[in-house]
């Protein structure tokens, strides 16, 4: 293939140059008007390709419910239970335990029950629970975090009798009410 413009570079050389972030700077390519036009075209068709997939998605926003249903039937079979945590029992012949997964679910439910709060991840280690939460924009963050801490502490105590030393709440996200399918 002949070189582009006054250079010896091919279309593929220019594509490689673009892929390298135009570094190190090639003065010959940067000074050649035709190379510049080709580089602009390459960038344009690349970004149009990404736009095209985004548009395809926007034009078909609905997932088939039977497709969704069969996906969830499979996923529900693979419960992430985690390890068992022993609970105290008054009967010496009985041993009770609860899975980490069940504790996480309890913690999530307790935190979500606080107005304007969505619980993110829940970390359990020994007798410490670390929770990250997102707070609805406009709701006082400290009050929400404290309400979550109390709800989690009391629900864990009530349902599991686990001796929890501390419940740490980190607010690492803020959300607004969803415009689509939201409960606004």
């Amino acid at each position: 293939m002949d070189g582009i413009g006054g250079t010896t570079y091919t279309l593929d050389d220019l594509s490689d140059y673009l892929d390298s972030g135009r570094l190190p700077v090639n003065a010959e390519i940067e000074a050649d008007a035709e190379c510049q036009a080709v580089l602009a075209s390459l960038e344009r068709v690349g970004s149009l390709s990404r736009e095209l997939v985004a548009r395809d998605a926007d034009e078909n926003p609905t997932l088939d419910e039977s497709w969704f249903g069969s996906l969830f039937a499979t996923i529900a079979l693979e419960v992430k239970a985690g390890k068992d945590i022993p609970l105290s029992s008054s009967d010496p012949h009985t041993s009770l335990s609860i899975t980490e997964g069940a504790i996480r679910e309890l913690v999530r439910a307790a935190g979500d029950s606080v107005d304007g709060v969505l619980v993110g991840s829940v970390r359990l280690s020994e007798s410490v629970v670390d929770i990250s939460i997102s707070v609805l924009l406009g709701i006082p963050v400290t009050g929400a975090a404290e309400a979550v801490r109390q709800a989690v502490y009391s629900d864990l105590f009530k349902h599991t009798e686990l001796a929890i030393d501390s419940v740490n709440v980190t607010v690492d996200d803020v959300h607004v009410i969803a415009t689509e399918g939201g409960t606004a």
Partner: protein
Amino acid sequence: MIDLAAASDALLAGRAADGDANAFGALVRRHGPYLRAFATRLTGSAADADDVVQEGLIAAWDQLDTLGEPGKVRAWLATIVSRKATDRIRSRKPSSELDEERAEDSERGPEQRAIATSQLDALSDVLSALPDAQRQCWVLKEVGGYSYEEIAERLGVTPVVVRGRLARARATVIAEMEAWR
């Protein structure tokens, strides 16, 4: 039930990694259409796309604890889905040589194509008319953002073959999109 539609990707990914299937469901509803669109462009088939997106999401659910950056969950899902898509492509392609030959035959001039009404429609037509092997490489590189080596590994060919396919795809796309500058 709690409304998860307002939650960020990072929050949903964190919950899903903890085993919350509803949070995973919210991610699927949010990003499923994009994953399907990506897989459709890649496989060239809406039915195959539905299958590979489903396979990819099931695999993703099992590996959520390996997700490094929860905020980048869409890109992470797209990577898993694209791998399922290339697995499917490899399983249905008996020979890459045949495909390369077919590639030469089907290169057509822009005048043979119906006039598109927008540059996105034009690009859509150009990509659809590319030989499968060229289109797959193009989509993996430009939309997936993968390197020649990664694409080669996924498609089970050498990087030189990928380079050749992309060179032909690029020449066609650039020539046919010239009118839309």
